[in-house]
């Protein structure tokens, strides 16, 4: 008799556990697998250290009468896991359960993960694929009163810990919201992020759109800049999240992890100057210069398809994580545009929030000017960029490779906008490009008598020796010395007085600006 009483609850436990782990059922799971798309639990397994998942809310179900049986884990799987031995909090949306739509129970799970991550210093991982608010749960004034808006900090980002997000299917509702709050976002080709689905848009406005045209990878990687990376498969997306987190501390009061310097790092420095064309009118790919400077296999570019006149990349120098901001003359000659401003600001905020020193590599003729630039709010973007740069409290080291002109000289760390400025002997520094300056200063245009002489004079005045002689740059270095120079100065500039931790003055800067 006693044994039977004990066994019943234990049997219930096992049965309920099996049912919860079954997700939306075999047929739905098989259909996904046939398309080469992982399910919500397989995604977690692929992401984390083997066997480290500790689930929270396995027995959560819908509170709506009649829905209990069809809502295993209520469509959002939550828990703690380890990545590279470090604890993280995870939400993985299970699209096979009511499209992972948001409900009272699963929003509580999200709230718990967010709170614990912030309080205990765990990175937050979002695996996105969701259809939006669940109906009829959220319908009507009673639905709205019960479900939405009950957490006054739901979308608040104070950057206590890094957040990463993968867009792995249709991401409407909570998946787009938390993606756009994140510090790093990767999209798998074929996935979609949008405020609402094409079906709802057609009902509301009559506009017919394919999901891809509404919010596919090209839109977000190339036009909106809302994602940082594009990959082909779920597996690659999960690997990208792991990789990004390897550059991050687990929370904002910690330094990023230091790794051993890979063998052969810096060997390419001997011939780095060969990457720079002989003529100042020819361009080159700055990414190749960066890859020579940083530790081998440590280059991790973000937003590679957006604002391409600028490069933002994480990397390591002698094992320590750095954030690199550079102009890329290969695209538009390196002329800074408004997309590049947004991209750089996002990256400055990221680095400053997580105690990552910044290296700037400079070669830009200035900001893109003209009517189109003004319409895109160039003036405001340039000022936001400067404000962010001056709020940075981690070390900033800049190296002028070639051109630096006018306002862009300041935005790229010139003057006192870096802790140290170095220049290669190839640097040219001035207010505007000499050909235009001859016209402004002397009233001469190309072809006028005397133009070429004045141009030669001005080009000479732009050489680095003038600014070096008045200590406007602190160092003139040979190209091949750049890696050693940066390693030494990042050592000098460690934040010793605060154990490497910055002030995080931009912790509340808007995400996805």
């Amino acid at each position, binding site marked *: 008799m006693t044994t039977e009483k004990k066994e019943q609850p234990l049997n219930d436990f096992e049965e309920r556990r099996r049912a919860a782990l079954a997700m939306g059922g075999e047929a739905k799971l098989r259909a996904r697998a046939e398309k080469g798309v992982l399910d919500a639990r397989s995604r977690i397994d692929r992401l984390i250290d083997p066997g480290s998942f500790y689930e929270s809310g396995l027995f959560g179900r819908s509170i709506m009468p009649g829905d209990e049986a069809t809502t295993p884990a209520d469509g959002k799987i939550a828990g703690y896991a380890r990545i590279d031995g470090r604890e993280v909090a995870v939400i993985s949306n299970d699209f096979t359960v009511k499209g992972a739509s948001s409900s009272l129970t699963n929003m509580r799970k999200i709230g718990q993960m967010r709170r614990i991550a912030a309080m205990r210093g765990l990175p937050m991982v979002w695996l996105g694929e969701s259809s939006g608010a669940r109906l009829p749960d959220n319908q009507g004034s009673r639905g709205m009163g019960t479900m939405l808006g009950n957490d006054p900090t739901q979308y608040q980002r104070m950057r206590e810990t890094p957040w990463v997000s993968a867009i792995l299917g249709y991401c409407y509702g909570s998946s787009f919201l938390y993606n756009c709050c994140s510090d790093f976002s990767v999209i798998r080709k074929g996935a979609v992020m949008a405020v609402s689905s094409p079906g709802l848009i057609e009902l509301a406005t009559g506009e017919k759109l394919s999901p891809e045209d509404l919010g596919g990878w090209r839109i977000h990687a*190339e036009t909106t800049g809302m994602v940082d990376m594009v990959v082909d498969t779920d597996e690659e997306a999960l690997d990208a999240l792991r990789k990004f987190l390897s550059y991050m501390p687990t929370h904002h009061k910690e330094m990023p992890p230091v790794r051993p310097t890979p063998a052969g790092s810096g060997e390419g420095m001997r011939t780095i100057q060969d990457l720079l064309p002989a003529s100042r*009118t*020819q*361009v080159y*790919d700055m990414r190749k210069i960066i890859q020579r400077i940083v530790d081998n296999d440590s280059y991790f570019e973000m937003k590679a*398809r957006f604002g*391409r006149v600028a490069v933002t990349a994480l990397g390591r120098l002698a094992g320590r994580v750095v954030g690199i901001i550079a102009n890329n*003359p*290969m*695209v*538009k*000659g390196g*002329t800074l545009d408004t997309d590049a401003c947004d991209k750089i600001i996002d990256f400055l905020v990221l680095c400053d929030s997580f105690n990552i020193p910044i290296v700037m590599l400079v070669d830009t*003729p200035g900001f893109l000017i003209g009517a*189109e630039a003004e319409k895109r709010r160039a003036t405001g973007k340039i000022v936001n960029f400067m404000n962010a740069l001056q709020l940075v409290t981690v070390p900033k080291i800049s190296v002028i490779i070639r051109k630096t002109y006018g306002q862009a000289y300041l935005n790229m760390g010139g003057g006192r906008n870096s802790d140290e400025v170095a220049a290669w002997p190839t640097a040219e520094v001035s207010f505007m*490009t000499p*050909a235009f300056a001859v016209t402004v200063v002397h009233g001469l245009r190309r072809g006028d008598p005397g133009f070429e002489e004045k141009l030669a004079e001005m080009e000479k005045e732009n050489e680095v020796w003038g600014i070096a002689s008045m200590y406007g740059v602190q160092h003139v270095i040979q190209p091949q010395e750049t890696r050693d120079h940066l390693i030494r100065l990042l050592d000098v500039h460690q934040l010793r007085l605060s154990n490497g931790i910055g002030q995080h003055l931009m912790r509340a800067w808007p995400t996805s600006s």
Partner: protein
Amino acid sequence: MAKTEVKSEITGAVWKILVKPGDVVGVDEPVIILESMKMEIPVLAIDGGKVTEILVKEGEAVNEGQTVAIVEV
């Protein structure tokens, strides 16, 4: 096979055309070179693939956003 448009990101004049229909280009390989802002600025193929059409001629002015070539990915 999807067709992608290679677009100029800047206003300028076509200085050199580097590929012809049938050529295969890699990701971020230059397709044409523009003269713009007193610099030689390449227009790059964002996606690698086979060039099927070149839509500009040397010396021609192109605008920002103008399609200069089609690449079959």
